[in-house]
C-alpha cells in the first residue's frame, strides 16, 4: 500500500479542476544505487479518476513520468458533497486509492 496522495479539487463556473500529487519513486529500472546495483523498475502504470461513480480520466504511464507524480485536469460539473477519487496501480502490483469531497 503506497503513501497517501494529495488531492485538491476546486469547482468554479460549473467546472471542477483536480490536482493530484502522488507519492511514488517512479524508478525507471536504469538507475544504479550507491553500491552500483540496478534499482528495479517501479512505476505507476495506470491512473483512474472518478467523480462520484463516473470515470473522468484514465491515464497509462511509463517510467518517464517524474518521481512523486503531479497531475492536473478538469471536468464539467461538480457540486458540494461530491466525491472525487483517484486510484493508481503500479508495475509491482501495488495500488492506492484516495478521495476528496468537493466543498
Amino acid at each position: 500500500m503506497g503513501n497517501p496522495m494529495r488531492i485538491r479539487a476546486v469547482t468554479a463556473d460549473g467546472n471542477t479542476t483536480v490536482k493530484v500529487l502522488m507519492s511514488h519513486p517512479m524508478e525507471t529500472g536504469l538507475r544504479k544505487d550507491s553500491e552500483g546495483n540496478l534499482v528495479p523498475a517501479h512505476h505507476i502504470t495506470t491512473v483512474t479518476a472518478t467523480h462520484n461513480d463516473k470515470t473522468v480520466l484514465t491515464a497509462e504511464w511509463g517510467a518517464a513520468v517524474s518521481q512523486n507524480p503531479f497531475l492536473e485536469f478538469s471536468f464539467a460539473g461538480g457540486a458540494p458533497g461530491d466525491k472525487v477519487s483517484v486510484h493508481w496501480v503500479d508495475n509491482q502490483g501495488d495500488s492506492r486509492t484516495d478521495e476528496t469531497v468537493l466543498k
Partner: protein
Amino acid sequence: MTMKTLSGTLLATALAMAASSATGAEDDIFAQYRAMFGDDNPAELTEFQGEDLWNEVRGPKQVSLEQCDLGLGAGVVEGAYAQLPRWFEDAGKVMDLETRLLYCMETVQGMDVTELRQHPFSEQGQPQTDLEALSAYIAAQSKGMPIAVPQDHPAERAAFEMGREQFNFRAGPHDFSCATCHGQSGKRIRLQSLLQLNEPEGAKASFSAWPAYRIAQGAVRTYEWRMADCARQQRLPGLVHGSPAAIGLITYLGVLANGAEMDAPGLKR
C-alpha cells in the same frame, strides 16, 4: 487541510515571477521553468508524513511530540520554525529545529536517536527520514509568518558570530568558503543563480525557502542538509549535524533574514 483556490495558485505564480524580477534575476533563464510548477510542491506529501509523526504516540515513554517545546511552549508548532535557532534553557544550548526535534525524540519520547543523528538524511530513492518529514511539517506551520530569529541570549549572539566567521572560512584544497560563491550578488554557477547570503536580501530568499523539495533527489531536504552539502562541495570534511558550525551558519542566515516571510517547504533544483 486548507483548500487553495486556482486563483490563489495563479496569484502565487505571479508573485513568484514578480519576486524573481525583484531580486535582479530578470535574466534568470529558469524563471519560466519554475513558474510552471505553480505551488504544486511534492513536499506536501512529506508534510503529511511529518504531521502524522508529530501526533503519533511513540517511543518507550509512549507519548507524542505534542509535549515537545520548540521554543514557543510545549506543543506549539505554529510560527515555531520562524523563530529558530534559539537558546533552550533545558538543553543549555542554541538549537535549530532539527537539533531540537532529535532532543525531543530523545528526552520526551525516550527514543534512541543515535542512528538518526548519524544518518539524518535519506539516501536517494529511500523514504524520507523521520527528521526530514517532521522538519517539512513544522516548517510549513510557519508559512506566511515573519522570520524572527532571536539574538537575546549571549549564546545566540555567539552563534551568529561563529556563523559569520564560518561563512568566510577559506580552507581545504580548493580554498573555498561560503563567500566564494555566495559573497556577491548577480552571479551564477553554471546556470544556477547564486544568492548573496551575507546580506539580508539573499539570506531572506534562502532561509524562507528551506526545507525544500530537491528535484534532483526527489526528496525534501533540510537546512542542515543544505549546509552539509555545501561543505561537501567546498571539499571540507563532513559537517556534523547539529554542530556549533552548522547551528552558527543557520543562526547567521536566519538573523540576516529576519523580517522576511517564511515560505517553506520550497522547491529547488
